[in-house]
């Protein structure tokens, strides 16, 4: 087994998030709900946001997916809780750029998300890592400006 590559993908913190996903609780109040789907593999995620003005007070994540997408959703819940919508958008955009291998224009602290960048070595898995974030960006945050939720397709974003 090629342990190094594997361990880059499944870093301890990823496995931990996978095994003990955060954000799997009920919100007091669901202000925004959005679902995402990776049509090529069937991974699904549903995000719920509880808002306080433009601040995200709480996040719930549900879905069916692989270790990478589960961990990514879990990290999302942890990272985004307490941020304002623009702050969350900034992180999500940044993460997307990083995962697409683009030059990073400014410094953003990705926290545990940093660990997910090892996925870049596994191009087909990039969309697993991005699914919750694309759902956040394209649906949830946009819905936070109040449009009805619809499932988004992240296929072309991630492959």
């Amino acid at each position: 087994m090629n342990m190094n590559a594997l361990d880059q993908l499944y870093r301890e913190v990823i496995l931990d998030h996978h095994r003990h996903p955060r954000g799997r609780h009920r919100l007091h109040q669901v202000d925004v709900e959005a679902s995402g789907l990776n049509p090529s593999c069937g991974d699904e995620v549903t995000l719920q946001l509880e808002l306080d003005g433009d601040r995200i007070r709480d996040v719930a994540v549900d879905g069916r997916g692989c270790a990478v997408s589960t961990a990514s959703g879990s990290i999302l819940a942890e990272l985004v809780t307490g941020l304002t919508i623009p702050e969350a958008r900034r992180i999500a955009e940044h993460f997307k750029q990083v995962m697409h291998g683009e030059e990073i224009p400014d410094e953003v602290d990705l926290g545990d998300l940093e660990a997910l960048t090892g996925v870049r070595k596994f191009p087909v898995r990039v969309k697993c890592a991005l699914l919750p974030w694309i759902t956040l960006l394209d649906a949830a945050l946009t819905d936070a400006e109040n449009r009805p939720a619809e499932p988004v397709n992240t296929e072309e974003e991630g492959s």
Partner: protein
Amino acid sequence: MRGKVTAEDSAAAWKGVADRFPALRRTVNAHRLVYLDTAATAQKPDAVISAEKSYYEESNANVHRGIHTLAEEATAAYENCRKRAGELVGAPSPSSVVITRNATAALNMVARGLEHTLREGDEILLTEMEHHANLVPWIMLARRTGVVLKHIPITDGGLLDLGKLPELIGPRTRLVSLVHVSNVLGTINPVAEVAEAAHRAGALVVVDAAQGVGHMPVAMEELGADVLVYSAHKCYGPMGLGFLVAQPGLLEEMEPMEGGGEMINEVFLDRATWAEPPHKFEAGTPNVAAAAAFPPALDLLESLGLDAVRRHEEELVAHALQTLATLDGLVVYGPHDPKLRGGLVAFHDPEVHPHDMATLLDQAGVAVRAGHHCAQPLHRRLGVVATTRASFGIYSTKDDIDALAEGIRFARRYFSP
């Protein structure tokens, strides 16, 4: 199929058969490649690869219209492919074989081609275990025409629930289209039985034989198929090549899906008439290179003997079912009896998601497919969004399956807390 091979010839041909597949010599992540993704696309024997090369190096030309030596050679190669591809499945004649891009294109041609014969309220019967290629063209047709789609359900054992046939086939049933071998369950369907019921009701029978052809003897007459489709790339042939084979009369009745060169009789600025079938379905420059490269794959299959190919895959499936059964908690889909199954096994591991499984297996050189395998409705029926699938070919061995099992065990350890 051409003449039968003798047992000795067949045995000789089997010796070292895997060595004829250059891709199998490579390593992946420092392991020997264990290719268990034949159901997605088969590896190609050297004879196929070199035939495509020779075609390009010697006879490359456009077909039919050409009055020069290269064009004649190209046309001969193209028409020889038509003949051989038809013989493989017992086509009534070469002219009943349409050369297409793949099985998907062939199914779309059938749906578009028969559209003008169908009315709102007419019924088309499919099954719950179809590949998207045999679902979406009919869904699109239903949207355009108001044709009603029905589906033969499957039993929990992964078989077609034929008990439901009497209520599903009726006077409004115009067409039954079903998969020969399921690309997820592995089930070899009793196509002839369904076809008989369909024909009694006056319905046409379309068979998606993408997973059967090249893996077992297939005769469209025996299956009761009015139309049979398959892809060359799944039976050791080149990519970009598929076939639509039809019983006499049907191609005449079908309208062409595409217009262009080669498929016409007379063209005016505002109207046109079509060439005779099969040409009327072959618009534009065909993939002559692929056509030239397919017959060597058929030569190989014939030298092995398709009965022997089937026995080989049956043994592998039996071994796979046995081996996977030793892995606690692993759910294997489809019938338990290897006799009822083609050469593939899909499973679900409650501990390791299929994507992670596929990634971990790949680290060990084992190539499997993870996902819904273009069968979302079936996966919904199975209650999972994705499965892991190992599929076999003439080059597969029990060792390959053991490597798979070893890889699954490793994945489980890797993910266990």
